[in-house]
């Protein structure tokens, strides 16, 4: 008597009900003796300093943007995929144009190097005769010259 989506709501309720019951039973049984050292955040045995909630920088924004483009693309392809069998060549041609356009944007994006995630720019220590080991500061400029996206512009 429940509609199909009613069952889905029922599933969601039973899922969270199960978690609720499990945690409730645990709450009844488990000991609960908080003290302030125990409630301190764990940081490998040290007292944590500085706050943990820093704003993560912009590489996430680029990934989010790229994800959005592809998600919308696939969203539009879903209805096409369902009826593809009945229409045939015309559907294939329409899809091909659509996917090809976005593919060009994607290839451009790949070329520009925007998707190079958290690329490490290791600073290799140099050695100069008569000076000894120099912490090679200008290494970062050299890598920047070669591949601008490689180094995160802070």
């Amino acid at each position: 008597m429940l509609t199909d989506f009613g069952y889905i709501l029922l599933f969601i309720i039973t899922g969270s009900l199960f978690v609720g019951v499990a945690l409730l039973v645990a709450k009844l049984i488990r000991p609960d003796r908080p003290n302030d050292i125990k409630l301190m955040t764990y940081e490998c045995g040290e007292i944590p300093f500085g706050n943990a909630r820093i704003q993560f920088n912009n590489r996430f924004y680029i990934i989010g943007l790229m994800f959005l483009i592809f998600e919308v693309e696939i969203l539009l392809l879903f209805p096409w995929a369902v009826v593809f069998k009945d229409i045939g060549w015309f559907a294939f041609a329409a899809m091909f144009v659509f996917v090809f356009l976005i593919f060009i944007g994607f290839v451009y994006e790949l070329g520009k190097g925007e998707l190079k995630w958290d690329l490490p720019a290791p600073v290799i220590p140099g050695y100069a005769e008569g000076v000894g080991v120099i912490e090679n500061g200008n290494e970062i400029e050299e890598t920047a010259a070669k591949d601008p996206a490689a180094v995160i512009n802070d």
Partner: protein
Amino acid sequence: MVEILDNIDQREMVINMGPQHPSTHGVLRLELVLDGEIIKKVTPNIGYLHRCFEKYAEQMDDYSKVIPYTDRMDYVSAINQEHGYVLAMERLLEIDVPERVEYIRVIMAELQRIASHLLGIGAFGLDLGAFTPFLYCFTEREKILDIFERTTGARLLYNYMAVGGLMKDVHPEFKTDTADFLKTFRPKIKELNDLLSYNDIFIKRTANIGVLPKQVAINYGASGPVLRGSGVQWDLRKNDPYSIYEKFDFEIPVGMGEMGTLGDCWDRYIVRVREMEQSLRIIEQALDGLPEEGDVTEAVPKRIRPKNGSIYTRSESPRGELGYYIESNNSASPYRVKARAPSFVHLGMLPAISKGSLIADLVAIVGSIDIVLGEVDR
């Protein structure tokens, strides 16, 4: 720590890869300044396992009582630590040691080198997420520990060598046991290579990471597999031969930069794997040359009272050049014993070679320089 906090802008995070961390090979604290996941600055903090070895050496009332404490410095390769100290004392007192003792010492030292490398390689694989090679290496290592246990009675810290000889002779089936081990171990190295060394993900995670150029390695005083990984042909057993190492022929494997730039993590790793094969060759030749008779405790002096003077002797421990600087002032207890530990020097290099890498790379670099904290903090 406070000064770090003032001058970091909001986007950088200061994090403690602290004393309790799955991949710091013991109690080592690394203070990382991170931007996202890229490391801006690493400051190692040691001393969590400082067990006052040098103070103990000065308080002991006999030179040979220091030997159990040298075991506990680098507890993964205890025989090599004793070997270094005993060589220093014998050079100080100008004792020459019977042939059979030298051969037994070389065989035990090379077996211990294989066991120590097995642990180093296993832990390195574990840091990168490969759990199974760690257990395969431990299975092989247990076989070596069986041989040690039958000879010395202990699994990890032996107190087996004495100044001028050995505590006791080897057990009767020593030669057959070691020969069996050699036969079964050789194919295992090939299996380890297939599983880990030439695994594509492993190569991606270790090539071009933690690059240590040749000159920088020398200036930082690197030694052992870390120096050889950077392409320097330097092994104390060959270049400054002590004991009877010049009798055996073996090569020194050197990093060639096969998988990336010369001196990266993969080079240091593959030098250790190839070094195990060379140690097998040494043991084989030493087993053939082992003289049958000869009392191992004949040259052990009853009382050691060296006149005043000082000596610095170096030996090749699995982690690098292990040096003992001993100063004596003609009394029964040593005036000053300074142990130059290779891991202490290699950890000093960590900030220089890991700037600008990710946390995952830092874990690989710490694994590749293969430090033992007992030796770092002494």
